[in-house]
C-alpha cells in the first residue's frame, strides 16, 4: 500500500503555481555561498538578518514542508498527475528508524518524550513513517508463549496519532550495543544445550541468534524454533490487529544476525582493524555438522562431511593468508570447495525461505508488505573468490551469481528485499580491502529486477558515511527504483546540529528531484542548483 503524498501535493502546487514558481526562480539565482549558509546554519532556517535571496530559499523549503503535512487521503491513484508519472519520479517513501532500544526490556518506552518530539518533527518534514525494531528478547522475554506487547503498542499508538506509517522489524537476534539479549528462557536453554548456537572452526560460539541448523529441531522445550517464531508472529498479528494495513504498512522478518540473511561470519572482527578480514565459516556446531555429514554421504563423499574447510583463514585474516580463498588455485574452485559452498549457501537460502514463507502466510491477508533483509558484504568483492560473502553464506564469486537464487527465493514468497549500505561509495572504502559496495549493490539489484523483487533501501552507517547523502540520492533515483527507503537511525546524533540540518536537506532534495518533472519551465535551472546543493552538502558532510 502506497501513499501518494506527492501526487496530491503536486496538485496543490499547480494550484498555487505563482508564488511557488517565483520562489524557485529566485533560488536558481542563489549563489553558492547562500546555499551553504542554509546548510551550515545549525538551528536556523529562520535567521533574522539574512539576505533576501536566502529568505526566498527558506520559503521554498517551507512551501514543501507545508504542502507535505496536509492531511491527504491515502490513495495512490489520486489523480492523473501521479499516475501519469514514470515510476522513478514517484515519491520515495522515506522512513526513519526509531532507536534500537525504543522499548526497554521492562516494556516501557525509552526516551518517550524525545521520540514524541522526533516523530512530530519527521511528520512536519514530510517523512512517510518510522521503522520500529521489535525484539524477541523483549516481547517474549520471560517464558515461551508469554508475550508482552504493551511497550510496542504504546509506540504504535504514538506513531498512529502523529499520522505516520509504521514499518515493523521483527528481530529474532540479540544486540550488543545497546544490549538487547535473546529471551531469558532461550539463553537458559542455550546454557545447557550450546549446540543451538552457531560455532566456528575454533569452537567459539555466537550467541546472538539461533543456528539455522536447529530450525526444525524441537530444541526449545519441545518446540522447534520455527514454531516459536511462528507463534510470535501470530501473537504480534493479533495484538496489532487494529494497526495492520493502516498504520503498519510493512513487516520485516528477522532472518539471522542483525536480522540479515547470513551466517555470523564476521562477528569477531576487531573494531580497530581498518580492513575487515574474510570472516569464518560457521558450520561447526553439532547440528550443522550432522547436516553436512548427511549431505556428503548423499553425494557419495562421506569424508567431505567430517568438518568444514581446513584451509580457510580465520576472522580478521586476509584471503591469502591460507589457501582456501586464494584468487588462483584456491580450494574454493575445487570440486570440494564447490560442494561445501553450495551446501553452506543452500542451507541459508532454505532457512530464509522457511522464515519468509512463514511470514507471508501469517501476514498475507493483513495488507502489509513483507520484507527480508540481506547483507551487503562488500569487502573483498573485487577479488575472484569474494571470501567475505562466502563465509557469510552467499555463494557469489567471479564465476557464479549467488544472488539470483536469493532473489528467486524472495520472489517465490512475494517478499520485498531490504538492501543496506545505500550510503556507501567505493571511493571511501580502503583500497586494500578490495571492496566495492556500489558494484555489489548493482549486482543484487540486477538479480532483483530479473526476478521482479522490489527493493527497499537502507543506509548502513549510523554516524554518517562520507558522502553518504549523495550516494543515497544516487541510489534512489534514475534507474534505481526503490520501494521505500529507511534512514537509520533516530537518536542523539540524528538530531544533533551536525547532522539534522543535512538530513533535512536530504529530504528536501529528494522532494525537489521528484518535483521537477512537473515544473518544466524552470526545471533546468532548478535542477542545476539542486546539484550544487548536493555537492556542497557532501563536502561539508565529509568534513
Amino acid at each position: 500500500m502506497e501513499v501518494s503524498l506527492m501526487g496530491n501535493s503536486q496538485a496543490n502546487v499547480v494550484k498555487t503555481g505563482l508564488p511557488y514558481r517565483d520562489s524557485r526562480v529566485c533560488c536558481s539565482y542563489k549563489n553558492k555561498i547562500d546555499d551553504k549558509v542554509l546548510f551550515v546554519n545549525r538551528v536556523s532556517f529562520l535567521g533574522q538578518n539574512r539576505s533576501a535571496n536566502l529568505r526566498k530559499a527558506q520559503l521554498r523549503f517551507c512551501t514543501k514542508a507545508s504542502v507535505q503535512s496536509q492531511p491527504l487521503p491515502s490513495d495512490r491513484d489520486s489523480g492523473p498527475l501521479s499516475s501519469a508519472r514514470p515510476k522513478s519520479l514517484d515519491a520515495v517513501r522515506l522512513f526513519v528508524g526509531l532507536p534500537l532500544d525504543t522499548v526497554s526490556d521492562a516494556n516501557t518506552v525509552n526516551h518517550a518524550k524525545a521520540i514524541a518530539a522526533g516523530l512530530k518533527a519527521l511528520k512536519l518534514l514530510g517523512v512517510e513513517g518510522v521503522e520500529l525494531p521489535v525484539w524477541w528478547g523483549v516481547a517474549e522475554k520471560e517464558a515461551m508463549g508469554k508475550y508482552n506487547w504493551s511497550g510496542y503498542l504504546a509506540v504504535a499508538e504514538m506513531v498512529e496519532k502523529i499520522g505516520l506509517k509504521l514499518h515493523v522489524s521483527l528481530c529474532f537476534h540479540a544486540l550488543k550495543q545497546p544490549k538487547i539479549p535473546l529471551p531469558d528462557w532461550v539463553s537458559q536453554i542455550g546454557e545447557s544445550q550450546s549446540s543451538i548456537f552457531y560455532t566456528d572452526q575454533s569452537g567459539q560460539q555466537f550467541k546472538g541468534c539461533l543456528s539455522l541448523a536447529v530450525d526444525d529441531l524441537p530444541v526449545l522445550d519441545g518446540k522447534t524454533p520455527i514454531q516459536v517464531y511462528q507463534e510470535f508472529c501470530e501473537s504480534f498479528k493479533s495484538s496489532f490487529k487494529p494497526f495492520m494495513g493502516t498504520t503498519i504498512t510493512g513487516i520485516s522478518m528477522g532472518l539471522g544476525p542483525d536480522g540479515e540473511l547470513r551466517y555470523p561470519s564476521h562477528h569477531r572482527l576487531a573494531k580497530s582493524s581498518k580492513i575487515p578480514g574474510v570472516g569464518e565459516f560457521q558450520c561447526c556446531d553439532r547440528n550443522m555438522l550432522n547436516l553436512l555429514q548427511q549431505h556428503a554421504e548423499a553425494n557419495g563423499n562421506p569424508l567431505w562431511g567430517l568438518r568444514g574447510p581446513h584451509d580457510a583463514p580465520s576472522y580478521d585474516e586476509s584471503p591469502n593468508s591460507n589457501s582456501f580463498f586464494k584468487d588462483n588455485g584456491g580450494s574454493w574452485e575445487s570440486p570440494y570447495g564447490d560442494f561445501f559452498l553450495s551446501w553452506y549457501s543452500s542451507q541459508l537460502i532454505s532457512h530464509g525461505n522457511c522464515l519468509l514463507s512463514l511470514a507471508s502466510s501469517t501476514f498475507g491477508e493483513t495488507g502489509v508488505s513483507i520484507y527480508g533483509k540481506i547483507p551487503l558484504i562488500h569487502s573483498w568483492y573485487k577479488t575472484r573468490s569474494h571470501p567475505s560473502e562466502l563465509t557469510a553464506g552467499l555463494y557469489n564469486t567471479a564465476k557464479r551469481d549467488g544472488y539470483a537464487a536469493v532473489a528467486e527465493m524472495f520472489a517465490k514468497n512475494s517478499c520485498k528485499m531490504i538492501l543496506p549500505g545505500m550510503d556507501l561509495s567505493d571511493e571511501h572504502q580502503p583500497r586494500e580491502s578490495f571492496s566495492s559496495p556500489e558494484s555489489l549493490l548493482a549486482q543484487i539489484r540486477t538479480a532483483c529486477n530479473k526476478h521482479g523483487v522490489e527493493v527497499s533501501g537502507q543506509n548502513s552507517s549510523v554516524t554518517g558515511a562520507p558522502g553518504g547523502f549523495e550516494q543515497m540520492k544516487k541510489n534512489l533515483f534514475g534507474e534505481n527504483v526503490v520501494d521505500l527507503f529507511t534512514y537509520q537511525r533516530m537518536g542523539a546524533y540524528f538530531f544533533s546540529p551536525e547532522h539534522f540540518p543535512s538530513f533535512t536537506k536530504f529530504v528536501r532534495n529528494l522532494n525537489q528531484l521528484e518535483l521537477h518533472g512537473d515544473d518544466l519551465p524552470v526545471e533546468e535551472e532548478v535542477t542545476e542548483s539542486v546539484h550544487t546543493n548536493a555537492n556542497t552538502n557532501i563536502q561539508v558532510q565529509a568534513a
Partner: protein
Amino acid sequence: MSTVTIRPLLPSYRRANLNFRDRTNILLKPNYINYSIKSAPNARRFCSFKKLQKITVSSSTSTSTSPATSTDTTPVRPGDVFFKETFPLKRTHAVEGKMFVRLQKGKDEKNWQLSVGCNIPGKWILHWGVSFVGDNGSEWDQPPKKMRPPGSVSIKDYAIETPLKKLAEGDVFDQVNIDFDTRSDIAAINFVLKDEETGAWYQHRGRDFKVPLVDYLQHDGNVIGTKSTFGLWPGALGQLSKMILKADTSQSGIQDSSSESCELKQENKHLEGFYEELPIVKEIIIENTVSVSVRKCPETAKTLLNLETDLTGDVVVHWGVCRDDSKNWEIPAEPYPPETIVFKNKALRTLLQPKEGGKGCSRLFTVDEEFAGFLFVLKLNENTWLKCMENDFYIPLTSSSCLPAESVQEMLIPGKAEEATQEVSQTAYTAGIIKEIRNLVSDFSSDISRKTKSKEAQKSILLEIEKLAAEAYSIFRTTAPTFFEEAAVELEESKPPAKISPGTGTGFEILCQGFNWESHKSGRWYMELKEKATELSSLGFSVIWLPPPTESVSPEGYMPRDLYNLSSRYGNIDELKDVVNKFHDVGMKILGDVVLNHRCAHYQNQNGVWNIFGGRLNWDDRAVVADDPHFQGRGNKSSGDNFHAAPNIDHSQDFVRKDIKEWLCWLRNEIGYDGWRLDFVRGFWGGYVKDYLEATEPYFAVGEYWDSLSYTYGEMDHNQDAHRQRIIDWINAASGTAGAFDVTTKGILHSALDRCEYWRLSDEKGKPPGVVGWWPSRAVTFIENHDTGSTQGHWRFPGGREMQGYAYILTHPGTPSVFYDHIFSHYRQEIEALLSVRKRNKIHCRSRVEIVKAERDVYAAIIDEKVAMKLGPGHYEPPSGSQNWSFVTEGRDYKVWEAA
C-alpha cells in the same frame, strides 16, 4: 597598525563564558527600541526541558516543591494516586533601570572625572580601558596606574575591571569615578558594563561605550557624549535619539560619520562635560513549580486533586473542568473550595491557602467523577498569568485518559511522571500547531493573495521542526550520556596500549606547556626553552606544547595575522626550527599552538572594516563568518561561538579549509611539529577539526573547549555531566581524532580542594567526575595554563593547592599537562616525584581507577592496582590485604603509595 576593533571583548568573551549557563538574560542595548518583552511567563524553552527536574530538586530547599514532600503534607494514599506531576513555572521578570555616564571637570581644568553609574541593584563591574592618541584601531590599552580607582583589577594587559559602589548610604546609583589628567595622551575611555551576578555584558548599541577625550576619535558610531562645539555634530543626546529613530539605518550613519571624521583631525583638547542617562533592563528568570496530585476518593466517588506551589503571596487558581479531550471549560456544580468566586460564569477562581511556615501555598479540590479533566492557570496579579507551555494546564482526572494502565505505577516516581505528562501536553500542543498549519496551508492553496499569512505558516513549520529537533536532541543527549563511557571503554580495552592512534598518541604521553603569558617578553623564548629541553625530557615529559608561532597582532600570539610568517615575539622561524630539532633530539614530541578560529586582517574593506587578509593567504571577506557585525564577513554563519576580538574564519568555505590544511601540512613538514594544540575550538564545528586532523595526521592533538560549569546559586553543582558532555560532544564531532582539555576536572578540583568537599571527586557512578571519567583517552587533564593562571589569572587554581591538583592528574588516567610555571617553581621536586611514579608504574591515559573514598575531607583512589593516592586532610591508608603498599611521596594534603 591594528585590526582589532573591540579588543576588550577578548577577556570578556572568555569570562562571560564562564557564566554562560546562568539563568538570567541580558537586555540592555538601549538602542533596540523594540526590545520590550517585559514579562514572558513560562516562556517555552526547548533546550532546557530536561533541566526541569533538576530545577525542582535544586529549589527543594524551599521545601514544598519536591513531589516527595508534597506526598507527606497531604493525606494521599499512594495506592490511589494516579496522577502526580510537578510543573515548572518559569517567568521572566524584567528590572528596568537606568545607567548614567557623566563627564565633568574635577578639581581644576586639568583633572576631569568620568563617572558611570547604574541604579539597578546588583554587582556591577565596569570593564574598561583607554585608547591612546595615535592608536589607529580601536584596541584598548590599560590605563595608567594612577587613573585606576581603588579596587580595580587588571584584565590581561589592556583592560581594568572596577566594581561599582554606592558612594554614600542611601545613594540610588552604584557608581565608579575615574579621574584623569587631560594632559595625558589618552584619546578615549572605552568601557562596557558587566553584571557580575549574571555574567551579562551591557554595551552601547552592540558595541563598547566610548568616551572620546580628543575629537578625532569620533569616527565610531558608538561614541557617547560627543562635544557640541562642532556644528557638524548634533551632540550626544541628539545623536542618540536620532539613532533610535533611525535604528535601521544606523549602519550607514556610522559610515557617514567616519568619512566626516577624517576632516576633523585637528582639534585641541577642549573637553566639555556631559551627563547622559540610558535605560537599562535586566531580566531575571524566576522559577517556581506547581505540583498536582490526583486520587480517587472511594467513599464519595469523587476525584480529589491537590495543588501545591512554592509561589508565595496571593496565588489565585483560575480553573474549570472538562468532560473530554476537547478541553472545553466548564464550571462544576457546587460546593467549591473556600475562597472561591465564579468568574464571568466561565471559570472559578480560588485563592490558594498559604502553607504553614510561609513557603508556598496549596489547596485541595474536589471534582465529580464525571469530569475527565481539570483545567487551570495560575494568576499572580492582573498582569501575570502562569500557564503551561502557553496553554492551560490540563490534568487528566481519569487514569485511562492519559496513559496505559501499566504506566500508572510509574507515575508515582517523580521524574518519570514529569516525562509522561509533559508528553501529554506536548502532544496537545503540537497537534494544535499541526492543525493550525494545515488551516493556514489551505488558505495558502485557495487564495494566493494571502501570501503573508502563509509565510507565517511556513515559518511556524520550520520553527516547529527546528524546535522539535532541538528538543529531541537535548533529551536523547542527556538520557544517553553513557554511550561514550561504555563504548569507549570497550573499544579501548581491546586495544593494545602501546598502539599509536592518530591524534591521541600512545596513551603514555605527559605534556608540558612550554610557556606562560609573559614568555614573549624576552623576545628569545625559543632559545631560552631550548636550553631547558634536556632537563624537561629527563623530568619525564614526552610532549612539549610551544606557544603560537605566527606573526600576531598581540605579542602572545593568539591574534594571528599572516599565518606563513613565523616571526613572532618568541623568535624567528630558524630559531623555531632549532628548538623543534632540539626537542626531537631529546626524544620529545612538539605540539604547535594553532589558532584556527580567527585571524586578524591586513586591510580594511570599503567600509573601513578590517576584514581583508594579506600575506600568502590573501583571503577576502568571504573567509569571515557573516554573523559578527563587527567584521562584515560575507561567509556563512559561524558553525560555533564567535570570538569577538578578531574576524572569525568561516571554515565552511572550501578554499579556507584547503588553505588551512595546506598550512598545517606545511607546519608539519617545514617546522617539524608533531601535533597540535587547537585554540578556541568552541568557535567552529568539530567536524572541521576532524578534516584538518585527517589531513595532517598528527601524533597528538588537543583542543581547547572551554565553557562554564554548572552552578546553582553560586555553588558548583555536584553533577557536571552536562559540562563534560559538551566537551565529549566536541570530541565526538571531531570523531575522536583529538583530545580536549578536561576543563570539567579542573573546575571540580577547584571546588573540592578549595572548600574541602572531596566527595565531589566521584560522580554518581563512582567514576571520576570529569571528562576523564567518561572518555579518559581523550581527556587532557591540567590544572593551570597561560589563560587561567600565569599573569592573567582568569580562573586560577586555588592557591597552595596546586600539588594536590598534580597529585590527582599525574596519578589518574587521562593525559596530564603540567604548566611551565609550576615546573620551574618550588613545586618542582614534588612534581618530579609524581612524574616518576606515573612513569615507573606505567600509568597511561586508559588506566583503571578505582575510587575508594570520596568523603568530605578525603578522597582516595587506586589506579591500575599499582598506585594508591589520597587527597585531603582526612585519614586513608591503602588496604593491607593481598598487596603490600609502600609510601612513595607526599605533600600538603596528599599522599601516594605504590604496590610493592
